């Protein structure tokens, strides 16, 4: 499901409302960043949101970036080289950043839990830096990109299986302003 790759908690309220209207089974939201108290507040939002047109995401916003560009790319176990799908996503990110030159980003590097803590901090740094170098090669100024490694401290998927781990070996480009 494509929703996973965005992470439900990053979805804007309008996008969440659209999904609620479109899906029988409500996605499990963590209820934090999505705001508005999660499912309890959903009906009111649904009532006011247009359900027949595309989601009302303002171009040039964090939500626009996450929904229409894709904020993350994935890596193989103990690797930090960019796979073709990762490069495609980063190309879109670079294009977006060229279009909105006042925007800066923080690239987070993350790992799965199948490594030791300190090694994973170093590996997360490598992954964040690989994404950063690619954006720079696509014309994004270095000064607009900060990196931070979280090692295995902030997984996106919570399970302890390959499906979860493959979601967690990632870099996430977070629009900072």
């Amino acid at each position: 499901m494509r929703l996973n790759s965005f992470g439900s908690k990053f979805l804007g309220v309008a996008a969440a409302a659209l999904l609620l209207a479109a899906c029988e089974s409500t996605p499990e939201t963590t209820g934090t960043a999505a705001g508005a108290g999660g499912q309890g507040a959903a009906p009111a939002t649904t009532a006011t949101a247009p359900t027949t047109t595309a989601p009302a995401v303002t171009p040039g916003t964090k939500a626009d970036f996450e929904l229409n560009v894709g904020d993350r790319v994935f890596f193989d176990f103990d690797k930090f080289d960019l796979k073709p799908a990762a490069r495609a996503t980063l190309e879109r990110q670079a294009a977006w950043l060229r279009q909105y030159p006042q925007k800066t980003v923080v690239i987070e590097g993350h790992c799965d839990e199948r490594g030791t803590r300190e090694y994973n901090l170093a590996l997360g740094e490598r992954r964040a830096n690989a994404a950063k170098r690619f954006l720079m090669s696509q014309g994004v100024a270095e000064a607009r990109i900060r990196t931070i490694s979280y090692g295995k401290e902030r997984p996106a998927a919570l399970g302890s299986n390959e499906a979860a781990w493959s979601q967690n070996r990632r870099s996430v480009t977070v629009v900072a302003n």
Partner: protein
Amino acid sequence: MSTTTNPIAALRHVFVALGAGLTLLFLAVTAATAQIQLDLNRGVVQPLPIAISDFDAESPRSEQIGKELAGVIRNNLQRSGLFQPLDPRAHIQAPSAMRNVLPRFQDWRVINAQALVVGRVEATADGRLRVEFRLWDVFAEQQLTGFVYATTPDNWRRIAHKVSDAIYKRITGEDGYFDTRIVFISESGPKNQRQKRLTIMDQDGENLRYLTDGRYLVLTPRFSPSQQEITYLSYFNNRPRVFLFNIDTGQQEVVGDFPGMTFAPRFAPNGNKVIMSMAQDGNSDIYAMDLRTRQVQRLTSDPAIDTAPSYSPDGRFVTFESDRGGRQQIYVMEADGSGQRRISFGEGRYGTPVWSPRGDLIAFTKQLRGNFYIGVMRTDGSGERILTEAYHQEGPTWAPNGRVLMFFRETPGDAQGRGARVRLWSVDLTGHNLREIITPGDASDPAWSPLSP
């Protein structure tokens, strides 16, 4: 010595100054040859049956402390795996019946005690607590050791640990590790928003204290050899950096002014330096910073990941991990960075090397075919020995006597991470006596303190 008939009169007035207002007095040993000896270098040691009598006292308050003191000592010795403290309900001779006289050894032989600990607690006129104990060889009917301690009443647990250390040392010939603390990370909350707090406790889990409030992610704390300082990684202001934490004052300060993330810190054996990794442009190398001069020395410059450095106890060498050979392996170098050489060549990944306080071994985490192992090898990489295996465990830390390792072990949860559990465990160097360390909640990244001063 002329005191064999009345050992109670044999107080030799040798006072030793101890930290935290503790004073210690050696109770002279009768001229005995040791009958009881546990050899820790033999594989499996049969636990020694030992009776620890409740410490005798004349006031109800001291009597209560006397009972609790004996309980802490029993618990310490029991958990060491080397002793089998006998149930006090089986003791025949009452503590008060041994006041100022020799124990009735026959009564202790009946319950099969090989060693006997007899103690006494008194509140002194100046409001302090005076605790004395004697360790007896029940079969030889001889005193093996004895000490008198004086301290403030609220400090009684430390006396119990010091007595435990004295018993351990007399019986095994090695220093104990009971008068020590553990610094670790307390964990709570869902996996993707884990709250982590720097936490300190006595090695038996008592006196637990949170040192940070959980607002910032904190990882990998390590004790200073001087004991009152911890170095650790904090994500304060979203900038992961190595910090120092002063346990007495609560003061925190960042170590050095580095352009990139600093992590994996450890103190040098003399406490004057912190060695750590710094990541820049995606590459992690090892640096040492002198804490007084603030001078920084770069020890590795390799495009690979170089991290998890740990000094040898004499400060001459550093062991670290690197993936310069293709995957995580253990290396050793001189303290100035010269002579870097790989020492681990086994199958799998080797990381988190920690030099033993005795200098002869390096403990590590090994990953092989989906499992994690804690093991030890000699400092040249030979003699690899695996101590424990689990789904996930890592980060060994040595007891100051180099006989016990503590680490953390994680059991996975369901698809949403529910039911996952991460706890501290300890295991003897022999691979025996594997135990969970009881903590109030999830716990990781343990570091053992040196023996308290």
